[in-house]
């Protein structure tokens, strides 16, 4: 459990990614919610309040409130169907694309409500990247185009720079060695696990401030999984990461904070060491020790 400490000395140095234009100085939010992570003395990257998500008449998330600290890894765990993906997708407004979905409550990204009036979902998603549960590279595009497509969308045209960013992203995603000789091959020609790492590289290339990862390693072999975990650990110097995982060991290895969801509710949210060693809720304990799930 060597990863619990967050180097808070690094917070809010000038090098931090662009602050939201609108936020001003957000007042330090200190509501007495049971679901606050302890020791979140600095402004959180994401602050979720009373989040409810409905699909048609079905309520899938029930008044979830939690704060995701900046530059740390927060793991979301819980049994299948409890709303983990739904929660993750509400953090970058992916539900906007589902006509039957309705989101209530508040999600603040560095103090700015991403569901607020006048906020464009496109700009939110440029700052909050996502890796999906099922890998979804653009199949007809080449490996390199897949990685650089986000940059090109944002107007980056210089070939040298694109090539450099592409290599960096592929190296970070532990894929470079396997694809460096076939960067022009279509993405469809990669193996399933390679495709997933390609998706990770694609998300990294645009340098989002927050990276949402929905079971990024569920299709990977142990070696690639270890590489992705190393990547996550190295990324948290600069990025805020929220990761959904079914793998308890993985949550314990990479995350600083862990949230346990059950039937659409946030049951417990605390430091990872607390959740895995002495959770305060019986259901959490049962789940992390594998007694139900």
């Amino acid at each position: 459990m060597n990863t619990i400490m967050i180097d808070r000395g690094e917070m809010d140095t000038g090098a931090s990614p662009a602050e939201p234009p609108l936020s001003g100085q957000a007042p330090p939010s200190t509501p007495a919610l049971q679901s606050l992570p302890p020791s979140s003395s600095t402004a959180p990257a994401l602050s979720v309040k009373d989040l409810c998500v409905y699909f048609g008449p079905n309520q899938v998330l029930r008044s979830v409130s939690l704060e995701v600290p900046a530059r740390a890894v927060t793991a979301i765990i819980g049994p299948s169907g409890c709303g983990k993906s739904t929660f993750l997708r509400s953090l970058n407004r992916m539900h906007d694309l589902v006509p039957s979905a309705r989101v209530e409550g508040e999600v603040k990204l560095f103090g700015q409500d991403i569901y607020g009036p006048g906020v464009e979902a496109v700009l939110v998603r440029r700052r909050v990247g996502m890796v999906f549960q099922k890998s979804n590279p653009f199949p007809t595009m080449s490996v390199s185009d897949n990685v650089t497509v986000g940059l090109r969308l944002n107007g980056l045209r210089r070939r040298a720079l694109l090539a450099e960013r592409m290599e960096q992203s592929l190296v970070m995603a532990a894929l470079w060695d396997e694809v460096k000789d076939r960067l022009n091959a279509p993405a469809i020609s990669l193996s399933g696990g390679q495709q997933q790492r390609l998706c990770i590289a694609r998300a990294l290339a645009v340098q989002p401030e927050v990276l949402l990862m929905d079971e990024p390693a569920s299709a990977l072999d142990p070696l690639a999984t270890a590489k992705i975990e190393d990547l996550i650990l190295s990324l948290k110097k600069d990025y805020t990461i929220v990761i959904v995982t079914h793998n308890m060991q993985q949550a314990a290895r990479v995350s600083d904070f862990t949230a346990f969801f059950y039937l659409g509710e946030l049951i417990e949210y605390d430091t990872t060491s607390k959740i895995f060693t002495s959770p305060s809720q019986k259901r959490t304990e049962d789940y992390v020790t594998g007694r139900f799930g």
Partner: protein
Amino acid sequence: MSETAPIRPGSWRPKRGGAAVGDHVFKWLTLVMALAVFALIGAIGWQLAVGSREAMSRFGWHFLVSTDWDPRRQEFGALPFIYGTLVSSAIALLIAVPISIAAALFLTELAPPWLRQPVITLIELLAAVPSVILGFWGLSVMAPWLGQHVYPHLQAALGFLPIFRGAISPYCTLSAGLILAIMVIPIVTSVSREILRSVPGLQREAAYALGATRWEVTRIAVLSYAKRGLFGAVILGLGRALGETMAVTMVIGNSAQIVASLFGSGQTLSSEIANEFGEALPGTVFLSTLFELGLVLLGVTLVVNALAQLVLKTFAGPTAKQRP
């Protein structure tokens, strides 16, 4: 005694001999069907060739390159019809393809649900209009109106191009191209819409998650995924345009000539056959040349399709289908 046996591994054996037999039958059946299509095309081609033997032996290859067509003076050259067929189809595609793909994109990506179904129904209705009705409308309404209100302006604006020079006839190659476009649009739109609908939602989400706008999502996730299929839709439209007869006959002006101007009248292979077939007496050279026109039309269609396949192979890139 219907005592149910407990489920144990290996306790249930399907009672059918050789599961591979079905596969075998299926394989041969499909092969035979596929060959039947070839045989059919071959048979049609053969019949046309037999019918045109007389013309072939008389005019040889000259038939394909000669521009003179005057049955009374026994002059037979097919080039004006080949030209008319290719040009009117090209105009039709030039107009129909952008409109159809835009319409399909609108229907799949943008249209609010309440608008979608009415528009789809409308397009399907358009596809169901018999071509003779459409031609009649083109003859009595569209062509005169265009000739009076549109073509003069077009000439004023683009008259520096040879294709827009010269005397304006409302019954001309351009009118034929337009009526063909109207006939091609419903097909290409419907097929394109099906193809765009088959693009997985996950592809769109991937692009949205990169911060793409709706148009960017359409470009990088939808069009790049579907481009091969869309190309197929266009080929289907081209096939329709090349072979269409009735509506074209009624608006193209029916004169066997090659003029650079799209405002001049022309003729296509299919409408020449349709127009003259009733007048050609059995056993005459004239009838034989009409058969040969049919053979040429079949050839043009096959060549254009082959070229299209070649273009697809060369430029469209890999398929989006998951590897087996």
